[in-house]
């Protein structure tokens, strides 16, 4: 049925829309003004471009790297490493969390170790891993896994434990096996926790990959940053950081999109 909207309601909606528009405009403006000031300051010699580079320089370099294909090579490597590290870290983490849920004994035994590992900055392990696994892609991927896996285990396991006892009891009254309890209630009701862990993990995997590339220094965005820093090519460093920011934001949004698709029942 069509309802005629009252004038007051229209006014209200207009107000909300205007506010939303203002927020977006301000957000874009901040970026534009900042880039503009940076560029002007560089052109007029207020700042030393040797140390700060400038947007136009960064852009020129971006075009150059795009044309000669170097950009795609390095970005491709880093993205691949991140995705592999992210997937393995997440899947292994969830599997370990399932194991802890399955056996209370194992969970209790491993508890202090997990606490220590969780508070330890995992990047401190990177040099050891690179020496053990090798100074190549595999070393970098393992570093990425190490960074994300412990958080995954902790978060997902605590999600499993927060599942309503009565929901489990309900399935048990139907005669459910432990595996059925896991499949029908524990996993689906921890789904929101798992997804939010994924969102954290994508960032953590990038941390692992970039640190790994810093150390291995062969290829990838981390390599570009370190190399740029060593030869004082700040436009290269800036460009790499920009690209890194954009790609990781896109990956985060992808997960948020998947989350929205998969949790229709919540909306």
């Amino acid at each position, binding site marked *: 049925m069509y309802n005629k909207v009252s004038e007051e309601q229209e006014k209200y909606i207009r107000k909300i829309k205007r506010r939303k528009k203002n927020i977006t405009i301000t957000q874009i403006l901040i970026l534009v003004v900042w880039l503009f000031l940076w560029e002007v300051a560089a052109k007029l010699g207020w700042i030393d471009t040797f140390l700060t580079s400038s947007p136009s320089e960064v852009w020129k370099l971006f075009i150059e790297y795009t044309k000669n294909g170097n950009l795609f090579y390095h970005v491709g490597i880093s993205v691949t490493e991140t995705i592999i590290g992210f997937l393995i870290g997440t899947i292994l983490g969830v599997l370990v969390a399932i194991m802890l849920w399955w056996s209370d004994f194992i969970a209790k035994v491993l508890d202090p170790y997990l606490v220590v590992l969780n508070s330890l900055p995992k990047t401190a392990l990177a040099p050891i891993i690179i020496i053990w696994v090798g100074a190549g892609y595999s070393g970098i991927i393992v570093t990425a896994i190490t960074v994300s896996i412990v958080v995954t285990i902790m978060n997902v396991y605590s999600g499993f434990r927060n599942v309503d006892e009565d*929901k489990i009891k*309900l*399935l048990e*009254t*139907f005669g459910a096996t432990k595996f*059925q309890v896991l499949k029908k*209630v524990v996993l*689906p009701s921890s789904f929101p926790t798992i997804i939010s862990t994924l969102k954290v993990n994508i960032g953590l995997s990038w941390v692992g990959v970039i640190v790994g590339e810093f150390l291995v220094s062969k290829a990838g965005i981390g390599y570009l940053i370190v190399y740029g820093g060593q030869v004082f090519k700040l436009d290269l460093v800036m460009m790499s950081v920009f690209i890194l920011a954009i790609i990781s934001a896109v990956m985060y949004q992808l997960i948020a999109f998947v989350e929205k698709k998969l949790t229709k*029942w919540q909306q």
Partner: protein
Amino acid sequence: MERKSIVEIKDISMTYHTLDGETEAIKDINLNIDKGEIVSLVGPSGCGKSTLLSIIAGLIEPSKGKVLIKGKEVKGPTKEIGYMFQRDHLFEWRTIIENVLIGLEIQGKVNEENYKYAEKLLDIYGLSDFKEKFPRQLSGGMRQRAALIRTLVVKPDLLLLDEPFSALDYQTRLAIADEIGIILKKEEKTALMVTHDIAEAISMADRVVVLSKRPATIKDIIPINLSCPGEVRTPMKCREAPEFRHYFNQIWKELDIHV
């Protein structure tokens, strides 16, 4: 006709052990429930009513005694028993029909016939339009009805109701208790219901079992005979019966509640 006991509870005792010591929760409970009978269990809060239900359902093992369902001893959850909780515990990520089918799914009995039966129950009890909806789209009363259907679909011989209405607001509670009372009678279900609402116990049950304080023992079993107005006995109408007040006072006295 000879009345057949579907449930025999024999000398059930339960003691909980913790590091601080042991607590006797239930002591020497004996009770038989006949087919088609609705029995209410009332008692002071914390007296072990829910423990008793869990024992009957085979979820916990009693320290002493045994429970027989149709002459078979209960050793772990069986499909003869349907359990209904305080809250509906519908799974938010499943549609109503998927929620209703969960028991059959667990028991590997989703087939054409059972699916039709589930649909029929949803239809009879006014939920067929909500089949494909998610639980959050339903009202509290409808959700509880869906929860009852989920229990009925597996065709249990005995329903255990653990304060099934206490999470609902008062008006909904009266309405849904009435409905579920009618459903239970219509489907000729045997039920054991824990409640702390004396009026609810009297209006729905054929017998009211009064438990004592912890350790819980059976203090009294009161057969309820209400001359309900109208042809069909419904819990709501039974509240108008002249004997109602008498039963209420009797049970209240036996509960012996001091605050």
